[in-house]
């Protein structure tokens, strides 16, 4: 089945079985491995991408979104956040604050933070915790990540 996807500001054509997970399409067909497999059930946030259906970007689990549905929205992955060599302020803040260890969950956290700041430019600590709660981190960088999001908010 052929699909035309809008990803990271461009269009990409793929030919994959109907119902294929967006995560699999991104990683195996489009070479965008920044969204990571963690649980396949939307319980960990490692595969989050931004999906925009015209009402602003939302962080969604790409492991739960079928390609059919993905073709109806604008997708931005972590690879699409930086412009040329200029990092998104959230990426800049995570890097500067060393808000990572293994980094496996970082893509998803960055996506959630970007979605949060798009709807709430000056979030409180509680809002940050709530918005990033779907993103599990086993290395334990939560307090650093909260600081990084606040720093990105300026």
């Amino acid at each position: 089945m052929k699909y035309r996807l809008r990803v990271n500001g461009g269009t990409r054509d793929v030919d994959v079985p109907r119902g294929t997970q967006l995560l699999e399409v991104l990683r195996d067909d489009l070479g965008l491995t920044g969204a990571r497999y963690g649980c396949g059930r939307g319980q960990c946030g490692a595969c989050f991408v931004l999906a925009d259906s015209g009402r602003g970007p939302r962080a969604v689990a790409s492991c739960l979104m079928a390609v059919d549905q993905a073709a109806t929205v604008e997708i931005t992955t972590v690879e699409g956040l930086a412009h040329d060599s200029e990092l998104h302020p959230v990426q800049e803040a995570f890097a500067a604050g060393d808000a990572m260890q293994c980094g496996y969950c970082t893509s998803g956290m960055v996506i959630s933070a970007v979605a949060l700041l798009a709807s709430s430019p000056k979030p409180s600590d509680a809002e940050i915790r709530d918005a990033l709660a779907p993103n599990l981190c086993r290395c334990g960088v939560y307090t650093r990540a909260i600081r990084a999001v606040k720093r990105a908010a300026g």
Partner: protein
Amino acid sequence: MSREVSERAARVAPASRGSAPDAPIPNLVEQRIRFEPDGSVTAFSGKIEFGQGIRTAFAQIVAEELRLDPERVRMVMGDTAQVPFDRGTFGSRSIAQDGDALRKAAAYAREQLLRRASEKLGVARERLTIADGAVRDGGVRDGSRGLTYAALAADPPLAGEVPDDVPLTPASEHRVLGRPRARVEARDIVTGRATYVADVRLDGMLHGKRLQPPVRGARLRSLDDAAARAMPGVRVVRDGDFAGVVAERAAQAQAALDALEADWTSPNGDDQQTVVIPMREDDGVDAALASAAHVVEASYVLPYISNAPIGPSAAVADVRADEATIYAGTQRPFGLRTEIASALGLAEERVRVVPRMPSGTYGRNSVGDASFEAAMLSRLAKRPVLVQWTREEEFTYAPARPAAVLDAKVGVGADGSLVAWRYDEHTNAHGYGFAVDPRVAPFTSGRNAIPPYRFGKGRITLYIEPTPVRTASFRSLAAAENVFAIESLLDELAFAARTDPLTFRLRHIDDPRLRRVVEAVAERATLGERSSAGLGKGLACTIYHGTYCAQVAEVVIAANGTPRLTRFWCAVDPGLVVNPDGVRNQIEGGIQQSASWTLLEELGQRDGRITTTGWDTYPIATFRDAPEEIDVHVMGDEAKPSTGVGEPGTVPVAAAIANAIFAACGARVRELPIGAERVRRARPNG
């Protein structure tokens, strides 16, 4: 008579595979440092980066001794075709051991470059300056007579064993060591460009899944693969009890795996027995207990828990007729190479293990399940194969942290001294795949079972008991278990002796470095000041592989008994500090992870079969559970060798929290995880 096992005795211990485990590994400068024509340096280590920050720290160490900007140092790590042999990345030993070897290799290279430059230029060694990739005659103002490192190192090639007494740059002259530095990988990680194991893509690569046996050692009696074979793009492969599928797409492989109908025979029950290892056996312990003014007898219990990496195991293998390349998440690239070579029937030199960043796995990658499976599938399919375990497979088949029951009976004399210390540690093997070696076990399953306090008569015994649960390495091995018991016990003893926990501990600590971190953390956390109702602070400390770590937890207890960790303080002394922010990050993360073990985690199992399948049944701490503040006070000691920080931060946390809960509401909880119900049951008024 005291019979304490010494480090020396344990080192004799080579029951495992491979060459003699603790034979010294020569430190050859040509295997460690390579000078590039562009003025940069490539340095080599067999250690693995999986989030601890050692790639950054190693680059700092090499840069310092070679007078370079750390940007100019590139680390090659773990690739068996490129790096010197290494036993593995564990025990928070990387900085202490390989950091030391790299530092000396870089210093030796620097001294050789200076010696050669002195000869070539005909200038006394003292007049030369070395910096930023060139050696110059300091007496010449325009610096035109500079010689590059690469040119000096080339002819003849710099080689030879690094002497142990090579002069190191003194701390007073450090320009790189001890300064905070952001992670080398940071930009790649935040942009998604970092390549993890599961991101490796090879031409012609297939997705593979192994049919997992229901229990280890089960035999495959029959396999009905008709439905799987009928699926497009799928092949079923089998070699004896090993069966699996490969497919063009990941979802096809999973569907084909699900379509296999297998009949397994149960393995014969093995007749493993409890191994009893005396760690200290003094005469007269019972008499000393009988004479004590206060005796505290208590049992502490910890469940099986999961390493629970966010990224389940993965590997990519490319196996050809006479060679193999394995892209792996592993802590033991050379050990894995031996195992894969053996499984494939290849000579070790024909197998190359290329580590890629795994998700943090906290000990789980000492066992190379996915790598073995990918290698077997690739051999059978004659194509490169990517294996990606599912979340459910990771919980179900990965090894767990052993359970533990810690029985203690300790006496305090009328003078306040610890007159007798009896401690029975019941746990399971903290390694996987080989028999328990009584000479090694005190340092693995018995790690930190001997308290860092002065005591009179002691009897400390380790019981390693068989279990149907697959257990293996876990961050800090048994230290976190033992220190939960010992540091909870210290508070119970202090309470019995009507002394505050800080004063009581200090009374029995001889080691000045331990005393220093305990006093520092107590001051920063204002321990001992009166606090509001329902709020409590608890102290705990440890010495872990030479790193001194003292902590205070602050908890608030809700009316229904739910403990919430609100603030945390830690003072840590890891000797000479390489990267202070790297130290803070590791300790903070260790505290956060260990708080999750303590308050939330328990792996479900029935007769050895894991019943936990996902994050819904294995909750870990989330952003909502994070404390408001984790204050890490890095109080290094530049006169002392650098020691590790990956594990020590996790070790005292459970006791600090349990002690804080006691301080807050009088509930002494001796079993983990500590949830509302355990607090309510232990609380004086329910």
